[in-house]
């Protein structure tokens, strides 16, 4: 199937290009013929993947903006209603809740995961026995399925008999939290699981970044009498800047789009205490068939992610100077 796709893409590209090439080659130097040939070859390499990518990703992104200005359900056709979806969104209480919850999740999850993954990376960045084992362990949650993880954690968090609250009782906590059954504690529970799951992945990025910190700088700082904390502040952190930046961008996007973890752990509940933007899009779109309104919410998510990323790029650029 794949080879067929490539062959057809090759055929699709060739009829348009060779005539143009032949037409031009009469007046131009052989160099430009080579250039046209290179173009053709380049496109045939890129096209098989790009066609799939364009149709399945780029086109939907463009349609998104259109749909957000319409009413549309699965069976009907789109009807243009201008900015009605957006005005409705601004007044929608549930949307506000979802937005606030998403910001809550991001505001706690981003710094927590940054701190945990950096600490793990620093711990593991040593020449000691068994480091490969610990690295494997830390990364393992990230590659296991979210459904299995969610069900296990829900059992661990079980308020009465769950191991976590049993442990809390054992160390003398009187009113152990109700975790996923309580509106106040459900979000912290989800954040704990999210951090637990993702820190191994960001740790790998930090570990890769730490390899680029020149050992001579550490040596020199030590000679000058800098202690471990000063070396971390003044040598490691500045050298890690590109990595930290990249990790922060990825973490931010990841936090704003958080979805599957919440869907399987709490399904937004109890009440609306863990309802997040992605889930609201899903509910409105696939639950209630309001594709137009759901798309307006999706546009807001899209814009948040893009704007935050651009902002982070600008801040990073200014710090570079």
């Amino acid at each position, binding site marked *: 199937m794949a080879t067929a796709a490539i062959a057809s893409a090759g055929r699709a590209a060739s009829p348009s290009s060779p005539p143009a090439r032949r037409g031009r080659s009469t007046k131009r130097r052989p160099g430009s013929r080579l250039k046209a040939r290179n173009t053709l070859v380049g496109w045939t390499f890129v096209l098989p993947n*790009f066609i799939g990518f364009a149709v399945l990703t780029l086109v939907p992104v463009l349609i998104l903006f259109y749909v957000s200005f319409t009413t549309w359900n699965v069976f009907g056709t789109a009807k243009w209603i201008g900015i009605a979806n957006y005005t409705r969104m601004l007044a929608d209480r549930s949307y506000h809740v979802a937005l606030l919850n998403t910001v809550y999740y991001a505001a706690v999850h981003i710094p927590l995961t940054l701190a945990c993954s950096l600490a793990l990376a620093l711990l593991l960045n040593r020449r000691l026995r068994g480091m490969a084992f610990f690295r494997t362990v830390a990364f393992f949650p990230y*590659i296991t399925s979210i459904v299995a993880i969610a069900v296990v954690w829900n059992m661990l968090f079980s308020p009465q008999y769950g191991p976590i609250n049993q442990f809390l009782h054992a160390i003398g906590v009187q009113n152990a939290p109700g975790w996923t059954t309580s509106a106040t504690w459900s979000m912290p529970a989800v954040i704990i699981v999210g951090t637990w799951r993702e820190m191994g992945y960001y740790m*790998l990025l930090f570990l890769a970044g730490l390899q680029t910190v020149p050992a001579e700088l550490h040596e020199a700082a*030590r000679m000058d009498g800098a202690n471990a904390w000063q070396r971390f502040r003044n040598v490691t952190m500045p050298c890690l800047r590109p990595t930290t930046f990249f990790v922060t961008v990825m973490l931010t996007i990841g936090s704003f789009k958080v979805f599957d973890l919440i869907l399987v752990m709490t399904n937004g509940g109890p009440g609306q205490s863990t309802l997040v933007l992605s889930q609201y899009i899903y509910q409105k779109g696939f639950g209630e068939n309001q594709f137009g309104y759901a798309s307006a919410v999706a546009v807001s998510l899209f814009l948040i992610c893009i704007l935050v990323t651009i902002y982070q790029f600008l801040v990073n650029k200014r710090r570079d100077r």
Partner: protein
Amino acid sequence: MAVVTAGARVTRRRPWGVAGRVLGYCALIVAAAAVLLPFVWMVISSLKSNNQVFTIPLQWIPNPVRWSNFIDIWTKADMGTWLKNTLVLSVAVTFLQVLTGSFAAYGFSRTRFPGRDVLFLAYVGTIAVPWQSYMIPQFILFSKLHLSNTLWSIVALQAFAAFGVFLMKQYFESIPEELSEAARIDGLSEYGIYWRIMLPLSVPAIASLTLLTFTNTWNDYLGPLIYLRSPEIWTIQLGLRSFISQYNAEYALIMAGSVLSVLPIALIFMLGQRHFVQGIATTGLKG
């Protein structure tokens, strides 16, 4: 390419001091235990009888060990079908992703044509665009193409991800241009260079991409949730989820199902963990 090898950077460290080393190990062991605890709990619960799962105090060693949960789940749930569907999907997606991804990566890293950089920028730009934001128009599109509620929808969804292009491009650029230049002089076409020179030299990157894509497709929950409605085409994640809501008090059985859904990935990860680590360290992305 930044390869993570813990501690490869310093030839000789100053003596850490026994205390520091012990402290470091203690911290690591505590962290490792905390990370692994949910999995340990999953496995021991899957070997208990149902009313032994939640006991006060906690029973850490199942007594008696009940292997029967792992037999019962096959009769109570359609595990066979789900695993088969998931396997078929994962293999198909991985194959397409590696093939088209590496092909496109060659185009982006080794050929020059107008518009190349703009195209690549389009790929890069999608990193900042969450799938959740365009899942609805994509669903509309797939429905019009009559792809929804077929396994093809998941293949289409996953097979052309930008990730494969990034990873392969990054790796191709670390291979010396002189090699392909020499082959070109010897008369090999660009396709020949791709197939006979670049691919054989990129086995580590291909291994990374294969493992990451396979894992990703295996674990995907949202794509199947939206597109696969009929139970006979469910994947293991969807099946497990429906099993959980259907038998929500059968804790031991649920844990057995969870173990079965994690096990193949755990095995693959143990065997190829080096490739996972390198793939992520190279691109800084997952699939």
